[in-house]
């Protein structure tokens, strides 16, 4: 190409310099986006993509939870098969079963009660005070109170289930409110909740119904208890085993070495 008139072509150099800067900006922007995607493991940073990624992760979680249940059932089978071989192993197996029962790692069945907790399904009256609107939904503290009352009255095993999952109450179970849902064993759950307890049915029920107790004092707004809480005695209930991972439960705690202590 013929050399251009330097006076007329000066702009090309300036555009070139800015192009250089643009190239740098472009590279930095792309590298940042790539690193965000690589670190988060999410293929896109756009909202619609994020929603899809969340759904995928939820599905994955569900599959993994099923896998834990399957694997644990397999372990049980192996232990039972081994336990039959010798009496010594048989005794250890028996002890192991007892400990697992205590830890909530075995499904149990027996007499008990079922408590159903449900958000108020009707329309909340328009003249309801803002502070009383919370009365119409089930809160984490309701579940905690009921679990506490059931254990206090002799419940031996308790699990809470919603439409998606069943969570056994074990020693490290936390029941807390996270945004719009309630997390139990770090799993999101939503109304309706069914709290199943194995224990003396009459004692368990009367514990919940005692004067000035949980059902008696249910909400400042009257008449909600019959809509939101149902307590039923059952001749046969099944409480499933804890289905979460047990490998991450003790990261800090280790058994005390009693020989070294003295």
């Amino acid at each position, binding site marked *: 190409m013929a050399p251009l008139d330097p006076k007329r072509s000066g702009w090309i150099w*300036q*555009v070139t310099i800015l192009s250089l800067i*643009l190239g740098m*900006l472009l590279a930095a922007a792309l590298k940042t986006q790539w690193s*965000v995607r690589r670190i988060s493991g999410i293929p896109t940073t756009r909202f619609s993509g994020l929603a899809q990624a969340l759904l995928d992760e939820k599905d994955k979680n569900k599959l993994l939870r099923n896998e834990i249940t399957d694997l644990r059932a397999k372990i049980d089978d192996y232990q039972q098969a081994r336990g039959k071989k010798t009496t010594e192993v048989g005794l250890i197996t028996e002890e192991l079963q007892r400990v697992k029962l205590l830890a909530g790692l075995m499904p149990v069945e027996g007499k008990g009660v079922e408590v159903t907790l449900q958000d108020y399904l009707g329309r909340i009256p328009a003249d309801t005070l803002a502070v009383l609107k919370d009365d119409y939904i089930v809160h984490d503290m309701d579940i905690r109170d009921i679990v506490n009352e059931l254990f206090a009255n002799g419940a031996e095993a308790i699990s809470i289930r919603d439409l998606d999952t069943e969570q056994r109450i074990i020693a490290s179970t936390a029941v807390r409110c996270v945004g719009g849902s309630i997390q139990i064993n770090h799993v999101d759950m939503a109304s309706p909740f069914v709290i199943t307890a194995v224990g003396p049915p009459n004692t368990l029920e009367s514990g919940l119904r005692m004067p000035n107790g949980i059902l008696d004092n249910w909400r400042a707004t009257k008449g909600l208890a019959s809509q939101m809480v149902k307590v039923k005695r059952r001749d046969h209930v099944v409480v499933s085993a804890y289905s979460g991972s047990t490998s991450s439960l003790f990261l800090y705690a280790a058994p005390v070495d009693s020989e070294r202590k003295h």
Partner: protein
Amino acid sequence: MVLLPLIGLIGGFAAIYLLDVTVPAAYASYLSLATLAGLDAIIGGIRSGIEEKFQTDIFISGFLANTLLAVLLAYIGEQVGVDLFLAAVVVIGGRIFLNVSLIRRYWLTKIALAKKEQ
């Protein structure tokens, strides 16, 4: 000569790409906006260049002012929860399309003229 801006673009890209430079993820959207504003300035510069109306002060101040305004809008938008950066994206994007179409016409006219002369 005409390819110089393209070479500059590739050179700058390669420099940052090969060096170990990363920007915190929180600034990713601002960086993308600055890139868009830069692209607009370059295409606007090429257009004014071929129209022989190029002025250094307008070129540089335009780039700086547009970039800063776009980033400022995005920042304010993030603070008040409105996607204000969309305003910058729409305006700058529209201008890029306009300028590219003018550049295209200029080259097409030039080619047509050259053919006539033959």
